[in-house]
Each structure stands twice: as structure tokens, then as C-alpha cells.
């Protein structure tokens, strides 16, 4: 384990909901379930309008290898199959289900029987599991690295480094049995040699709970490691480096350095799924932020409209500026309160207008705070500089400065005293770089000699 850990940005913790036991909300009148709630191809819809559905029923199947099936989160009937615009401007199909309020489970649900890695991976795929920390990478695809025997180290991500969010904290505090079961499944079917659970040290009760859970002799290979309470400990590459000292090479995956990183809530879901057979249909969501009147943790069916969730949580202030999927550092601002809770939504953060407005931008004073804050050791000022160059020079500088390594954690923009949009520029640069590559397939990464 390296002595000097990466990630040194002090963001406010604001974990006021850490002690708030999650409340299960009653089914909303309608849910809207998009077919893309994961990284990869859209799921293929299996139901038609008017058809009755039950909780846990598969309503869309994986649309490719990197994809995940989707299940009905309430019982009722399919009202409409519509097209909605996601936050990123992509049009995706979505299934609108009218709830009958009964939450009747589907009759075919059963506990999967697994005997080996193949059947385990297949069962995980059927559960609809994706990375619940926010990335939404299909879990079974991650596990499949073990087909090549790559995985030596399993890392359970309980860092939860974003401000406000305590959904993973709730999992660790209240769903210990599920986490334990999930861990046993991984031990049995993945068979890695070491297991880490990384938790930020601002959650001592979670660390204590996890240590107690894995105190037995047969769990000696499971190590609960306190991480510094600095952002972004939960970033995958940062977590891998801080726990194992391994650096994921450019353009490679964690499996290439023998690591499998799974969010603690995903692990708990797996443990629960293999005990009850209920696929991924609900999420624990932290509702907090400066414009939330009564912050709390809510267990909501996937597809619940944000407005129904906020109404259940006790409403929001008149002076609402922004509503985010996720926390304020990497969360996505939504444009409509009727947007649904997704598989990857672990928080809905509502900020008041004062917090939502950007800091005034002044000239860069070259103070170097962004460089010191970057957990990937990049120089964010260079990416912004590249945007002012000609396309060829821009592409050369972006390649030289390794733009592709930027994890968009937002530390640079957060610390900048001049309020400069650094990570925002990185995203623009990434898009421009992509355009440049498709227009110049022969681009080799160095400046064109004129």
C-alpha cells in the first residue's frame, strides 16, 4: 500500500443523513423506466403497451454483450412505450408503467442455482446488476475478466467520497448480511487471493461494522482499509492505487492490473439477489442538499419520478436552483423534475439558487492548485490552453498531456480560486479530440510538420 495516497481535495462532507435509516416509499402512481441505465447498448423491450407486469418481471433484455436486462419495479400495466431525452441529449426508449399499488412480485421469481463461475456470471447478468456507485458498468461483464483468470484482487468500494451522499453508508450499516453473502459468493466463484474494503475514515462506524463482519478466521484475506477523507477516494483508479499501489495503464482496465472493483451496494445487491431471487428493482437514494427541507434516505422503485421522490421526502424549498442525479462533485444536473430514478442513482441533490450559480471567473493566476489537486497528476491548465490552438496543434497537445486519463472528478474546477471551468473544458476538449480523430484517421499523436 503506498505511503502517499492520491486524492487530496478537501470538499465539504455534509453527511447529515448518515444516521438516517432508509425509509421505503410507497409505489408512485407511475414509473418511467428507460432502456439505458447502464454503460453499453440499450436494452431490448420485451413488453407491449397495455400488458400487465409484476415486480421483478423482465421487461427488457440485454441488447448486446455490454448491456443489462431491465425489470419492472412496480406491478401494474404498461401504459406507454415512449422516447425520452436523457440528460446527455440522447433519445432513448422508456417504458411507462402505471402502478396498481399492490407491488405483487412476479410468480416466476426464484433463487438462482449456481454451481460454477459460468452459471454465477450468467445469474449476475440476469439480475440486471450494474455498477451502482454511479458508473453503471454491467457487473457481469466486469466479472467475465475472470474467464481469463485475470482477477487477483477484489476491491469493494465503500469510499463514498461525494458530499451529501450516504446511501452506501446505509448499506454498510444495515445490510451487513447481504454484504457478507455477496463477499462469500465472490470468494467462491472469483477466487481472488486478496479482498479489500476501502472506506473513508469519516465513516468510523462503517469501518467498525465491516471489521466485525469479516472478523472470522475464514475471512482473514478480507482487509478493511480506512482511506483518507479526501475527494476522490472512490474514483476507481485512485482506489486501486491507494489500496494496492498498482497503476492502471493508459487505455487499460482494472482487470489488466488484476483488480476487480465493485461498489459495496452492488455487492450487497448480489448477496440479496442470490438469497431472494429479486432482481434490481429499487434503490436507496439520499435526498439532501441546500434546498431540501427534510434530508433523508429513501428506498424508491427504479423509475420513480424525481418529483414523487422529493414529495415523499418532505419537499424542496421554493428557492431551488439545481436538481442533480448524484452528488455535487460529479452529479448530473437534470432539466425536469419528471425524470426518473435510475439504477445508478444513489442520491438526488437539490441545491438552492445561491449554491447553483457558478463562481465568477477571473484570470488564471497560475497558482497550481489544480495541478496539486489532480489525482491523476495531470495539468488541467494545458487542456484549456489546447482549446485555443489550431485543431492539429490542439490534438498534439492533448495527446502529449494525456487528456484521455482525465477521470472528470472535478477537483481542478473545485479548487480553482479564479473559478475557471477546467474540467468543463476537459470535456469539451475530449469531444473536440474525438471529432479530430474521426476527421483525421492518420493522426499519430504528434504535431503535423508543416
Amino acid at each position: 500500500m503506498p505511503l502517499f495516497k492520491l486524492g487530496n481535495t478537501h470538499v465539504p462532507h455534509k453527511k447529515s443523513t448518515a444516521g438516517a435509516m432508509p425509509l421505503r416509499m410507497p409505489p408512485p402512481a407511475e414509473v418511467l423506466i428507460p432502456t439505458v441505465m447502464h454503460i453499453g447498448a440499450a436494452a431490448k423491450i420485451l413488453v407491449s403497451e397495455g400488458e400487465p407486469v409484476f415486480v421483478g418481471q423482465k421487461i427488457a433484455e440485454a441488447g448486446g454483450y455490454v448491456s443489462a436486462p431491465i425489470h419492472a419495479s412496480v406491478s401494474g400495466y404498461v401504459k406507454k412505450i415512449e422516447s425520452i431525452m436523457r440528460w446527455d441529449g440522447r433519445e432513448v426508449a422508456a417504458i411507462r408503467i402505471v402502478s396498481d399499488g399492490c407491488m405483487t412480485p412476479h410468480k416466476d421469481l426464484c433463487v438462482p442455482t449456481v454451481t460454477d463461475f459460468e452459471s454465477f456470471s450468467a445469474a449476475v447478468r440476469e439480475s440486471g446488476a450494474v455498477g451502482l456507485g454511479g458508473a453503471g458498468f454491467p457487473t457481469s461483464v466486469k466479472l467475465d475478466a475472470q474467464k481469463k483468470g485475470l482477477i487477483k484482487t477484489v476491491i469493494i468500494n465503500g469510499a463514498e467520497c461525494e458530499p451529501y451522499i450516504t446511501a452506501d453508508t446505509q448499506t454498510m450499516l444495515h445490510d451487513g448480511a447481504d454484504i457478507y453473502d455477496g463477499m462469500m459468493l465472490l470468494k467462491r466463484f472469483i477466487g481472488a487471493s486478496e479482498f479489500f474494503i476501502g472506506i473513508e475514515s469519516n465513516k468510523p462506524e462503517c469501518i467498525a461494522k465491516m471489521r466485525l463482519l469479516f472478523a472470522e478466521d475464514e475471512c482473514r484475506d478480507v482487509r478493511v482499509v480506512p482511506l483518507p477523507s479526501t475527494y476522490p477516494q472512490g474514483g476507481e483508479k485512485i482506489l486501486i492505487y491507494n489500496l494496492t499501489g498498482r497503476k492502471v495503464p493508459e487505455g487499460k482496465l482494472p482487470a489488466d492490473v488484476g483488480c476487480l472493483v465493485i461498489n459495496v451496494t452492488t455487492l450487497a445487491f448480489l448477496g440479496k439477489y442470490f438469497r431472494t431471487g429479486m432482481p434490481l428493482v429499487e434503490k436507496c437514494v439520499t435526498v439532501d442538499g441546500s434546498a431540501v427541507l427534510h434530508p433523508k434516505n429513501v428506498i424508491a422503485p427504479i423509475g420513480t419520478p424525481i418529483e414523487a421522490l422529493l414529495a415523499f421526502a418532505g419537499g424542496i424549498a421554493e428557492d431551488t436552483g439545481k436538481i442533480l442525479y448524484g452528488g455535487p462533485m460529479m452529479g448530473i444536473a437534470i432539466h425536469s423534475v419528471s425524470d426518473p430514478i435510475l439504477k445508478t442513482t444513489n442520491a438526488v441533490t437539490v441545491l438552492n439558487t445561491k449554491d447553483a450559480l457558478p463562481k465568477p471567473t477571473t484570470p488564471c493566476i497560475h497558482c497550481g492548485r489544480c495541478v496539486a489537486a489532480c489525482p491523476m497528476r495531470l495539468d488541467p491548465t494545458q487542456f484549456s490552453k489546447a482549446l485555443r490552438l489550431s485543431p492539429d496543434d490542439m490534438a498534439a497537445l492533448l495527446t502529449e498531456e494525456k487528456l484521455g486519463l482525465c477521470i472528470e472528478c472535478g477537483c481542478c474546477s473545485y479548487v480553482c480560486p479564479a473559478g475557471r471551468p477546467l474540467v468543463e473544458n476537459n470535456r469539451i476538449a475530449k469531444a473536440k479530440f474525438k471529432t479530430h480523430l474521426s476527421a483525421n484517421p492518420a493522426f499519430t499523436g504528434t504535431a503535423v510538420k508543416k
Partner: protein
Amino acid sequence: MNKLIVSSSPHIRSSLTTQRIMIDVLIALLPATVASIVLFRLKALWLILVCCISALATEALFQLAAKREQTITDGSALVTGLLLGLSLHANVPLWQAAVGSVFAIAVVKLCFGGLGKNFANPAITGRIFLLIAFAESAGGAYSYQLIEKFKGIYPNYATVIPSMATPLNKINDAGIGYLLCEECKAAGKTFCPDLLLDMFLGRGLCGGAIGEVCSLALLIGFAYLLIRGVISWHTPTVFIGTVFLLSWILTGNLAYALYHVLAGGLLIGAIFMATDYVTTPINKLGKVVFGFGCGVITVLIRFFGAYPEGVSFAILFMNILTPYIEKWTKARPLGAKKRGAR
């Protein structure tokens, strides 16, 4: 409910602003400012006021004339003015100080595009400009207490004092013996703690620019900047350490090395000027290289050069090298291949 605001993450920002940083630098300069006024009385006060006001006025008028956004509220012009004032000696005519301030702001800073765009530190370049343009008035000056003391010795002190050299001139001429009081000389010692303490507190035989004579005040400012996280320790420590070690090696005398640390503009330069964000390297290794380079050049000028003092020239020279230092000391990103490797 209002319309929702949609923007790219992050949605929260630290409360730190450029203005707040500049205010911190001004606070850190406060002890040195107070010390200079205590030691040099009204002369220092007028010098500081003239430098600050002319710096602010230059910036305001320049931005007005260039039809650019008014920037005097960011505090950077005030920092430049105050630093320039503190790095001049008490006998500099006020009109010269004003010229230096105008030069620093208008030519060195604003002509290059304003805050963040200048390649050299405005205060230092302003000081060097005055040193070269008005060489006769750039010698040393002695503190108020010393003048009182000299009044008894020299009846016509008013003409004697301004023509006297600062300790650094003196030591270059007279050698190590200058560092010792008569008692120590008689006792055959090579070390005079009283003199060093005097220099540390800024009293006694300690001439120089008004802001640089009191080492204690500068170190208090250094501690404040470190605690507030405004600067990192790298540049000042390496700069001062290099001067200390090299002087020790070159003379073989510890007292002499300490003397070189306390005399001249080393502390004010290392703490407040070599740590200027705009004109020094961004990463830690770069800061170390920068501080080391400054230290070496300072010692070379002090020991072998024509000028008694080399801190300003050292920093200016390293300012020019900064883009190269940054290029050479760039950190390798996490997981990136070695530069050049494919």
C-alpha cells in the same frame, strides 16, 4: 418553482478567490510594513503610500485607457505596490519610487496582458529598473535608531549616512572582521551572536531596503502564508537553504553564512517574490529547482559579482527560465507511459 439551472459538474466550488489570496499576501506583509515604519518612521510610510497609490492609479488608468475591465479590486496591484515600496531603501526620492511603481504595473504587468500573463515579477522588475536607472540613489540606508546613534559620532551625519554602504557592501570590502564587535575581535572569536540577533530583529548595524531589515517580521509573514496554504514551503526553504549552505562552504564560517541569510533582500525575496504564482513553476519539483537556481545565482552575484546584492537579479533570471523548468519537471500522469515511449 424557478426554472432549473443545468450545467456541467462540479456544482460546488471552494470559497477561495484570487482576491482572498491577495488579501492574505497583504496580511502577511503587514508585520514587515509595521517594522519598516517603526525603523524608518515617516520616510518608510511615505515611500509605501506613494508606491501603493501609484500602482493602483496606474492600473485603474491603464484599464480605463485600454477599455478593459477594471481589475484594481483583485488586490494584485496593491500587492505589487507594497512589495516594491518595501524593497526600496528609505532614501529613494518619492518621485523615483512612483516611477518604479508605474513601470512595474504598466510595463511589466499590463503590457503583457495583465494579471496572470506577465513573465517576470512586477515588483522585482520595478526594483531592478530603479537600481539601473537611478544607480546613485540605490545604495543602502540605515534605520532610525542607527541615525540617532550616528548623530553623536558624526556631527554632519546627514551627508555621511546616505553615502555609507549597506552591510553587504561593507562585508565585501572589509571581509569577515566587519561581522565582529570590538569585544569579540579582542577575544579572538569568529562569531558575534549580538550582531546576528540585531539583524534578526532589524535593529543596529542593519541597513537595507525598508522592508527587508527586520527578518523576524518577514518570518511571521512566511508562517502566516504557510498556515493559510497560500504558498508551499518548497521555494523559500530551498532558496534560503542554498544561500546558507553555499555561503558556508565558500567561507567556512557559520556566522558568515547566517549573516548572508539575514542580510539583504534574501528573506523578502524568497518568501514573497520567488513564490509569486504567475512567474514561478507550478509543481513541487519545479519549485525546488527554481529555489535552488535562485540560491546559486544570488551567491554568485554576492560573492563574485559587481553588485553587492543579487536576490532580485536571481529571481528575475529564474522567472525567465520558468517555462523551461516547468517543461522539464512535469509530473508523469498516473498510469501514463514514459514520455516519448509509445
